[in-house]
C-alpha cells in the first residue's frame, strides 16, 4: 500500500530505565509525518530524543507506546533486517575486517543478489560517492571523509526508500563538513530518496532540510520549514535554540489580530510585535524576542522607537561586529554587518559610550512567559 508518508511516528513514547533505576522518557509522545522524497531533520541538543526516534525507525529500539509506520505499514517489533530503511551511523560502523568492496557488497549479499550484479552495483555506488578504485582498501586506510562516503555508499547501494543519517558529519572538520552538506543535499535531490537526518548543528539543519523538527526533552517543540522556524519560532525554547535572541520582559497591553502592544519596562516604552501565542490575555506577563541582527545602531535620531543604551563590549569577528549593549543593567546583543572597513577609527565603539538603537517592531515576537 503506497502512502503519502514515507515514515510516520504516531504518539510514540520510549522509556528507559536509568542506571539509578529511575524511569525516564527519552521520547515523550512524539508524532510526526515525514513525506516521501523529503529532506527531514531532527534537531536538538544531546538527550533530546532525536537519536532514539531515529533508532526506533531503524528498528534498533522498539517504542514503549505508540507506533512507527514505514510506507504506511505499522512496524511493531519488526527487526531491523526486515525494514526497508538503511542507516548511516555517526561512527560509520564500517566493518574493519572487510575491504571497502566487501563492506558495500554486504547488504546486497544479504539480499541474495547474484555475484555479477553485486559487482556492478557496488562499482556504481562507489562511483557515485567518488571513491572509484578504492574497493580493495581496508576502512582504516581511508580518511574520515572517505570513510563517511563508504558508509553512505553501503547504505545507498541497497536503494532504500528512506535513508536514516545519525549525525553523519559530526566527526569531520568544519570545511569538509560544509562541503559534504551541499553534496548530501544534491545527492538527495538527485536520487529522490527520503532522508531523515539527525543533527545538533542548527546551521547544518537549516542548510539542508526541507523541514525540521526541533526537539527538546523528548518532545517536538516545533515542526516546520527552516524559514518558519527561524522567523516564527513557536516558543521561547525554539527562539533561543535557533539563532540568537534578546528576550525582554513586558506586559501585554492590547492585542488585535496580528499585532500586540507590549509595555517593556527596560525600554520604558511600548513595543508592537507579532503574537506567537493565541491565548495571550491582556495584562499577562510576556517576553519580547528580538533577533540581534534586526537591531540597528543609529545616530542623531530621536522620537518613538529610538532607545538609548551604553556600550558594554564590542567583539570584532570579521564579517560582523557583535555589540553587547548595557541596557539599564541588562545585556542586549546587537549584530552589525561590517559593510565598510573596520580599520577606520571612526567605526570603533568605546566602552560606556552612549549609543542609540532601533528595531522594526514588526520583526519582534511576543512569546508567552513560562
Amino acid at each position, binding site marked *: 500500500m503506497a502512502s503519502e508518508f514515507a515514515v510516520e511516528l504516531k504518539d510514540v513514547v520510549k522509556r528507559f530505565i536509568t542506571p539509578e533505576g529511575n524511569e525516564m522518557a527519552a521520547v515523550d509522545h512524539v508524532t510526526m509525518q515525514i513525506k516521501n522524497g523529503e529532506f527531514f531533520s531532527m534537531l536538538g541538543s544531546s538527550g533530546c530524543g532525536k537519536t532514539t526516534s531515529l533508532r526506533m525507525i531503524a528498528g534498533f529500539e522498539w517504542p514503549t507506546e505508540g507506533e512507527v509506520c514505514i510506507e504506511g505499514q505499522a512496524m511493531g517489533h519488526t527487526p531491523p*533486517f526486515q525494514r526497508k530503511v538503511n*542507516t548511516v551511523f555517526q561512527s560509520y560502523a564500517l566493518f574493519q575486517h572487510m575491504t571497502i568492496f566487501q563492506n558495500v557488497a554486504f547488504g546486497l549479499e544479504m539480499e541474495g543478489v547474484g555475484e555479477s550484479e553485486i559487482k556492478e552495483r557496488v562499482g556504481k555506488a562507489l562511483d557515485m560517492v567518488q571513491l572509484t578504485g578504492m574497493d580493495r582498501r581496508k576502512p582504516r586506510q581511508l580518511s574520515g571523509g572517505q570513510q563517511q562516503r563508504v558508509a553512505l555508499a553501503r547504505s545507498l547501494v541497497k536503494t532504500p526508500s528512506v535513508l536514516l543519517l545519525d549525525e553523519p558529519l559530526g566527526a569531520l572538520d568544519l570545511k569538509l563538513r560544509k562541503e559534504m552538506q551541499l553534496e548530501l543535499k544534491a545527492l538527495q535531490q538527485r536520487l529522490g530518496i527520503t532522508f531523515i537526518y539527525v543533527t545538533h548543528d542548527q546551521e547544518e539543519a537549516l542548510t539542508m532540510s526541507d523541514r525540521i523538527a526541533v526537539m527538546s526533552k523528548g518532545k517536538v517543540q516545533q515542526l516546520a520549514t527552516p524559514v518558519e522556524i527561524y522567523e516564527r519560532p513557536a516558543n521561547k525554547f525554539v527562539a533561543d535554540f535557533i539563532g540568537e535572541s534578546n528576550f525582554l520582559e513586558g506586559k501585554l497591553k492590547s492585542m488585535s489580530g496580528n499585532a500586540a502592544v507590549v509595555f517593556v519596562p527596560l525600554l520604558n516604552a511600548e513595543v508592537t510585535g507579532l503574537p506567537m501565542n493565541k491565548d495571550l490575555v491582556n495584562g499577562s506577563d510576556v517576553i519580547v524576542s528580538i533577533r540581534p541582527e534586526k537591531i540597528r545602531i543609529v545616530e542623531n535620531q530621536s522620537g518613538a522607537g529610538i532607545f538609548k543604551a551604553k556600550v558594554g563590549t564590542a567583539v570584532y569577528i570579521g564579517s560582523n561586529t557583535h555589540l553587547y549593549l548595557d541596557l539599564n543593567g541588562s545585556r542586549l546583543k546587537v549584530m552589525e554587518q561590517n559593510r565598510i572597513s573596520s580599520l577606520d577609527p571612526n567605526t570603533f565603539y568605546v566602552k560606556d559610550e552612549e549609543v542609540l538603537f532601533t528595531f522594526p517592531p514588526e520583526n519582534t515576537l511576543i512569546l508567552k512567559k513560562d
Partner: protein
Amino acid sequence: MNPHRRAPLVRLAAFLVYVFLYAPIIGLILYSFNASRTNVTFEGFITSFSENTQMDGSLVVSSPCGPFHWYCDLAKNDDVMAAAGNTLKIAIIATLISTIIGTMSAIALQRYDFKIKPFSQLALYIPIVIPEIVMGIGVLTLFSQLFTWANTAFNLSGDARLSMGIATVTISHIAFMVPFVTLVVQARLQGFDKSFEEAAMDLGANEWTTFRRVTLPMILPGVLSGGLLAFTLSLDDFVITFFTNGPGSTTLPIYVYGLLRRIITPQVNALSTVWILVVFLAVLALHILQNRESKERA
C-alpha cells in the same frame, strides 16, 4: 628526555630482579646436562657420544645422545609420555568448552540485561578471591560424595564404578578456566562499538549472520587470547588436578611433583627444560599475535 637515564638505581634494581627471575631457570637448564646420575651435585657436562651409555660409578661418561643423554632417557620414559598425553587431552577439551561457554557468557554480560546477571558476574570472581586449595577440596568432596552415592544407589561394581579420572579433572579445569576466558573476552567487548552489529542488521543480516560475519571476526583476537590463556592455565594447573585426578589421569605437573618427593635424576631437569621451551614458544607466539594486533588497531 629519557627519564630513566636519571635513575640508574631503578635500572640496577630492575636488572637485579631480572637476575632473580632467571637464575633458577638457567640453573635448572644447566643441570639437565649434568653427568651425575643422582643430580645432587654438578659433576660436569656429558660431552662425548658412544653407541652405548657408559657409566663410571654414578657418572655418565658418554651416551648415544651425548650431552642430551637425559632428554633421550626422557623420551623412553612411558610414564612421562602418558602424563604428557593426559595433560594435552585435558587441556584441549577443557579449552574448547571453556572458550565457547566463556565467550557466550561474556557477550551476555556485556550486552544484555537479565535477572541472574549479578549472580553470573559475581560467580566469575570466586576463583580469584578464593584460594585454589579451597576449590580443590570442594570439588574433591563433591565428586567423592556423588560417586559414593551413585555407586551404592545403582549398585555399580568393577569397571562400572565411578571414580576420579580424566573426566573429573577436565570438568574441574573448565570451572576455574571459564572466568578467565569470560573476563578477557568481556574486556575486549568493552571497546567494541555496538553500532557494528546494528549496521549489519540494518543491511539485512539476521542475528546469527551478524554474529558469524561481524561480531565473531571482530572479537576473534580476544577469544583467541582468552582461549590461549585458558589452555596455559590448564597445562599448568597443579592444585585442582591434584585433588581431582585418579589412577591413569596423572598430568605432567602431578608427575613432576611425585618425582620430587622421591629420587631426582637430571631427567626431571630435562623434562622441565623441554617444558620451559614449549612455554617460551607459546608466549612468544601470543606476544607476536598481540603486537601485530595492537599495531593494526593503532
